[in-house]
Structures are given as C-alpha cells and as structure tokens.
C-alpha cells in the first residue's frame, strides 16, 4: 500500500498519530475517572421524559425544556420515540414522565396503576393529505371514514405509519369506523416516523393521515395538499403523566422531578408559550393549550 503523502507530512505523521492516540487515551481515562466519581448528593436527579416524535420534530420541546430547567434546576433527558415505545418505557419503569397522545392506551396504563397524575396538556389535529389531483375524491367526502372508504374503493395508494404511534392508532380507528380491513397493494405500511411517511406518500403520489404540525413543518418539500380537516374525531390530544414509583420499588423513579415537570406544563405562562408556538414560522399555531379543560369538551 503506497499512499502518496507530501514529504513534510510524512516526516511528522508518526509523531502526529502517536500524539492523537495519546490525547485520546488520556481523554478516555479522564472520562472514566469522572464516571467513577460518586454523584453529588445535593444535585437534583435528571428527569427522564418519554415523548412522541411530534413534540420533538416540531421543536416545541426545544423551547420548553430549557425554560423548565432554568426554573427548577432539574435537567431533562427527553426520549423522542413513538407513543408505543414511550408507553412501553413507562410500563418498564424506564422513564419518569410521559407526554403522549393515545388516550385509550394511556387509560389502560392508568387502570393498571403504572402511571398517576394524568393531565390534559394541549391538542392539535389530524388531517388527511394526498396528491393535489385527489384521484379518490377525498375533498368531497363528508367525514374521515367516508374519505377512507373512497380511497379503499378506488384502491388509491394509502401510506400508513404502521409503527403503533399515536397517529397510526388514530388511523386504525378510522378504518374500523369505515368498516374496512385495509389490505392489498394500494395499502402500504411504512413502519416509520411521520416525516418519512409523508415523504413516501409525496414521492409515490399517495394519501396519508398526518398531524397538522409535522405536515406544516415539512410542507415546502411535499407534493401533498390537505384534503380533509376540521372533524371533531380528528382531534389529537396530548396528556402528560408520571410513572408510579410504588409500582417499581427497586428502580429509582424521579417522581419529584416528574411532578415538577407536570406542574410546569400546566402553568399559565407555559400554556401561553404552547399556544403561541409556531405562529411566527407557519402562520398558525401547531398546538392549542388545554390545561384544566375537560377532554370531552374540546371542539374544533
């Protein structure tokens, strides 16, 4: 192997490589020593937040978390995963607090006693998007179930999230409302996040169900239009809840931190920030604050 190198580099190559290796080694040792140091007892333990990709992708948490950390002195470790994984993390005691949007599944965890202190935080909504030509005539449909029926009868391409996220659960609920078991070549499951699914639908000229926030955030790269919106059942409702420490006696659940985070989300100042978020960038808010409201009273 003869690699061409200028002579000056050749002369200094060996000391350079050795130097880099040494520095790397020392840095490694330094880190190790740090890792072995006992945690300072007075420092507040970090709060592990399991949440959905939408709160991360829209950038809302990038605004809220620094504020919370400044106000309370806690650090937050957010895990932006699908609602399915966020709920599973809660169930295994791998998170302290959950911010998710799958009310039916959340209630199951409340009934099991895995989570407590479940509070309504905000909502946005789902919309059906598709190719501007709208071959299945979704625009003329009176309801989301009717729209899905039209897509199925036309066998127009539908791209599903297929990842057990809150959006996917919503989509499945609409299919069962429509009385259809979707299958066949026209129904494709992406098994991916919202952004990727929108991209696949756009590239292949298909329909999909999306939350408004992610669609607005990515709209400029998509050949997709909103074809159906504004139905009460298309509400996308977010709750926050903390993992019940009594369920996991051998794990160190940070319930004080979790409670502080819930109180922070429900505080009037935070709710105002949530309501204003995205107005400057997208011309409309991405989320509507709902603290203290009754879930069933939410309308469009």
């Amino acid at each position, binding site marked *: 192997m003869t690699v061409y190198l200028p002579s000056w580099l050749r002369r200094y190559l060996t000391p350079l490589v050795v130097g880099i290796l040494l520095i790397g080694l020392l840095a490694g040792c330094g880190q190790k020593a740090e890792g072995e140091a006992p945690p300072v007892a007075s420092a507040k333990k970090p709060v592990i937040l399991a949440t959905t990709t939408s709160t991360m992708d829209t950038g809302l948490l990038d605004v809220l978390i620094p504020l919370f950390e400044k106000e309370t002195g806690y650090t937050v470790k957010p895990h932006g995963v699908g609602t399915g994984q*966020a709920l599973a993390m809660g169930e295994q005691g791998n998170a302290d607090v959950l911010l998710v949007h799958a009310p039916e599944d959340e209630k199951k965890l409340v009934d099991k006693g895995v989570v407590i202190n479940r509070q309504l935080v905000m909502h946005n909504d789902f919309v059906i998007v598709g190719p501007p030509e709208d071959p299945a005539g979704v625009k003329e449909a009176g309801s989301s179930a009717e729209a899905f029926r039209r897509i199925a009868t036309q066998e127009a391409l539908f791209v599903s999230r297929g990842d057990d996220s809150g959006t996917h659960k919503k989509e499945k609920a609409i299919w069962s409302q429509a009385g259809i078991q979707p299958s066949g070549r026209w129904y*494709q499951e*992406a098994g991916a996040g919202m952004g990727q699914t929108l991209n696949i639908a756009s590239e292949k000229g298909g329909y999909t169900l999306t939350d408004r926030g992610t669609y607005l955030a990515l709209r400029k790269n998509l050949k997709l239009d909103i074809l159906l919106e504004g139905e009460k059942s298309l509400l996308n409702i977010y709750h926050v809840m903390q993992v019940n420490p009594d369920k996991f006696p051998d794990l160190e659940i940070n319930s004080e931190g979790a409670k502080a985070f819930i109180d922070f989300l429900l505080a009037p100042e935070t709710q105002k920030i949530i309501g204003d978020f995205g107005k400057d960038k997208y011309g409309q808010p991405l989320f509507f604050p709902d603290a203290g409201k009754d879930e069933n009273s939410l309308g469009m």
Partner: protein
Amino acid sequence: MGTAWQGLVRGVELLVGLDPGVLEVVWLTLRVCGQATVLSVLVGVPLGAFLAFRRFLGRGLVVSVVNTLMGIPPTVVGLWVSFLLWRSGPLGRLELIYTPTAIVIAQAVIAAPLVTGLSMAAFQQLPQKLPAQILALGASPVQLFWTLLKEARLGLLAAVIAGFGGVVSEVGASMMVGGNILHHTRVLTTAIVMEVSRGNFAMAWALSFILLGLSFTVTAVLTLLQQGRRRYGD
C-alpha cells in the same frame, strides 16, 4: 434480561414455525444484501486488481480516495442516493426510490470501496512480477485474471466477507432509500428499529438474533470456502 431470553425463544419459534412475515423479511434481507455484495464484488475486485498492478499518474490519489471511502458513513450514502432517486432528482424518472433496488444501489455504494481496498491489498500480497511471468507462459488476459484470483483468494474472500458484513449490518441508508415498507422494502435491520419504536422489545430481540444467525451463517459459508482447502503444514 427477561426480554432478551423471551426474544431468543421467540426468534427460534419464528424460524422453526416458518412464520411467513418473518421469512419474507429474512428472504428480502438475503436477496438485497446478496445482490449488493455481488455488485460490489463485480466492481471492486477488478478495480482492486487494476490498482494493485498498474502504475499510472494520480494512482496514489485514487488509492487515498478508496481508502477514505472504506469508512464512508452509510447515512451519507443514503442521503446522496436519495437525492439521486427522488422524483425531483436526476434519476427520478426511473421511479426507484422506496424500492428494493434502491437499497441494493445504496448498499453496493457502501460496500464497493471496502471490497476494492481489501482486494487491492490482497493482490499486492502477490509478487509484483507475477502477472508478467504468467503472461510469459502464454496465458490469455482472462486466464491471467483467473490465476491471479486463485492466488489471492484468501484475501479476496476476506474482502467479500467484509463487504457482506458492511451491508447486512447497515440500517441508516436502507431506511432512507427503502422506507421500511411492509412487503416491499422491510429488511431485518429496519424492522428492528421499527419494533423498538413500537415498544415491541421482545420482537426486536427475536429479529436481532435472527439477523445475527443469518450473518453468521453466510459468513461461516464464506469462511469455509476461504479456509476449505488449506491444510496446516501444506
């Protein structure tokens, strides 16, 4: 580690029970990785031979580039190939994005530098004068290439093994250009990422064991090919 154990049991069950969903994913993984490896070998081995035996202007630069590309991050390749294949891209008319072919292309791009670099090293292990000697014995160019392949086969199979290992373990590019679509482009690595995001940890474990089994089996076959006719003390 209860989940891991459950996953192992589940993985065995899925394979022994010939679960159609899993078999489909395993078969696509084998097909895509196999095609990508073959493609990268068809490009990489001749190129490696050329770089090993030919002296030309700028050869050092080409070798440096190949060596750099051996460590190219798969996500970078995924991004480039995406941009080529998207409808708005230069090859958009082929409608290849989110198809198995797109994954093959991306993976071949990832594996080709590995195969090129390692086969070049394998050929350079041979005496520099060997091609001239073989030609002097009256061999045709095809016979020459074939003889060199046989002489360098240990190193060449190492190159093939590295190429296959590179593509079978790859997830970022497969996700980007394939899209993990059920029955179309879902391979084992993207399925594992998806099952984790769904919270189906046991299933993710099961698939991870299946993937390990698959790559071990293929690598073992290649290793047997490599070591097969070698007897110690020969």
